[in-house]
């Protein structure tokens, strides 16, 4: 069945914003990213809604925007603003140090990790989504994991896909 664009936005904006937040590590960037992606979806809505996957469309747009010039321009604009504060959000019970280091990764490396460990996508899909080779996905992930000192347990099979 069809869904109105407004209904889609109302139903999915929160989840998309959270996705944007792990992708960018910044509340403001996340809001910008999700807004930009939703605007693009809105432009294309009559067509996309007739196709199959508006949510996938937005998520793909967000990931691509995140690693594109748009993101770099945005960050450059932000440099002049308030320096990044340490993460002290109430209720965050994860590894604050790890989260902080994640935010320091280059956009592409970070995107690969988010797609792999937050979105749970296999490397092949990540490669298609970002428009890079599977080898690039692997090398970017390996470099990022190495920086974060994350052990990759190769013998384990239980990784969330």
């Amino acid at each position, binding site marked *: 069945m069809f869904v109105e664009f407004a209904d889609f936005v109302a139903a999915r904006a929160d989840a998309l914003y959270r996705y944007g937040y792990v992708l960018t590590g910044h509340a403001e960037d996340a809001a910008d990213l999700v807004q930009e992606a939703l605007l693009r979806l809105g432009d294309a809505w009559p067509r996309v809604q007739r196709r199959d996957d508006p949510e996938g469309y937005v998520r793909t747009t967000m990931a691509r925007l995140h690693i594109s010039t748009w993101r770099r321009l945005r960050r450059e604009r932000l440099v002049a603003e308030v320096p990044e504060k340490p993460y002290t959000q109430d209720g965050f019970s994860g590894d604050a140090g790890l989260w902080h280091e994640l935010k320091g990764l280059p956009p592409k490396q970070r995107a690969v990790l988010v797609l792999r460990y*937050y979105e749970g996508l296999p490397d092949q899909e990540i490669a298609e989504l970002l428009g890079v080779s599977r080898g690039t996905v692997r090398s970017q992930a390996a470099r990022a*994991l190495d920086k974060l000192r994350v052990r990759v347990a190769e013998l384990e099979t239980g990784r969330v896909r």
Partner: protein
Amino acid sequence: MNQSGDGTGPMGGRSEADLVRTLAKAADAAPEPVGDLLGVIERRRVRRTRRRAQSILAVAAVITVIGGGTAVARGVFPHRGGEGPILADATATAVTSEKPRPTPTPSRSGTKAPGASIRPAAEVWPAAVSKIPAKAADGWKYRPITALSATELLLAAESSFEKAGRLEVYDTGSGSRTVLAETPGPEGVKGYFAQSFDVGAEHVVWYGETPNNGDKWADFWVVPRSGGTARQVGEVTGEQSEVDAVGVTADSVVWSVDKGGVYRMPLDGGTPERIEGTDGLHLVSWPWAADVGERDFRKPQTRLVNLETMQVTEVKAPDGLTAFDCGLEWCFGSGDGEDDRAVVERADGSQHRTLPGLGALGGDIVLARDMGLFHISGVVGLDGRGEEIEDHHVPLLALYDPLTGTLAGAGRRDPKGGGYGRGTSSSPTSIIYWDDDRRTVEKCRMVEADTAPASRPSGAPAPTGKIKSCETTEEGGGKEFTVVNLLAIPRTE
């Protein structure tokens, strides 16, 4: 997957599980968005001039339906990875046991979905339903556009995704296909995609553009309905190039633009001109235009104008409707999803009737010959967890003929969803089709509860142990389409 306590893994001892958990928890703890996220989108949408998305977007057709019931309350959108898209699904998948989902049994005995009595189109209009190959002889994929007659279907054959390279006509009487024309696009233009096609009395017309660059540019092409070599009529730039609908008359290409307004350009080339008195109008199907375009959301239609005579028909949506869409003589509408009730009336408000159990598909209700397309609710009740129970034997869609009052079922519904496509013509299409061999499948696997990425609504108790993480995709098909040709439906008034 091994765990490392509360996530503060020792230096050098972090695992992938820590990464999964940290990302999920960061998402959960994301600070409130700065300002009014949704309001900003609405305001920016209104004022900004359209910019094309970066990905390839041309004509589109196939809809996938995931889950059922009401649109927003359930998982209409395929979701990725393990991220539970909506509360109902997330709750359901966070159950620790492997208890199967309840089988669809009505909560009250004898309860039937209101649409259960709608018989499939193949029974109601056997002459209008046929099977056609989904691919051309050389493997290019067909994308149905509209029917040319009771037996001829106009199809675009695509060399790659949404790249129409050729027009073919499939004859459902003889099962034969012929090439109508190649659609090569202008020489030297990179990233060109033929967009909407439309069929006039003598010509097939289409426009094309380069959707992936920022250029405000479009061009128009025609080929005789009997076939031949496609000919470029002309090119436009600026506001004129933001085409939202196209058509062809005996002597001109006609089109409307996103901002409203209808233009024409002589078939033998020449300067495009704006047709007087068309401010705010969007082409429906020449000579008819309306005051609602495909990019107007939740805006009920109020005017229908015949551009040959400039005769105006005022239409008024009955109160309480969120969708209202008029063809040339009939109007269709429905309320919010919860409502499951469609209304039909003549453009002058007469012959008003209500169709229970049906809902509008966005604002896109009208098909060729003023037939209506509705979604049929298959919901028969709620289960113990408050989730909707669907009857999967109810058709996905209803085609409604206001002239005869006939309803017929269409589309593919399966236990996990369903799908259908509509022809991509600019004018209301006369083709509805689907692939009977495709299946919506849900793939689930058991994962450690706290490694499942953000799989539960905030506030829900944290599951422990193994939980089920699911995603929904489509599989199979690709060989054959079942097509309903609305031009082959017998009608007697």
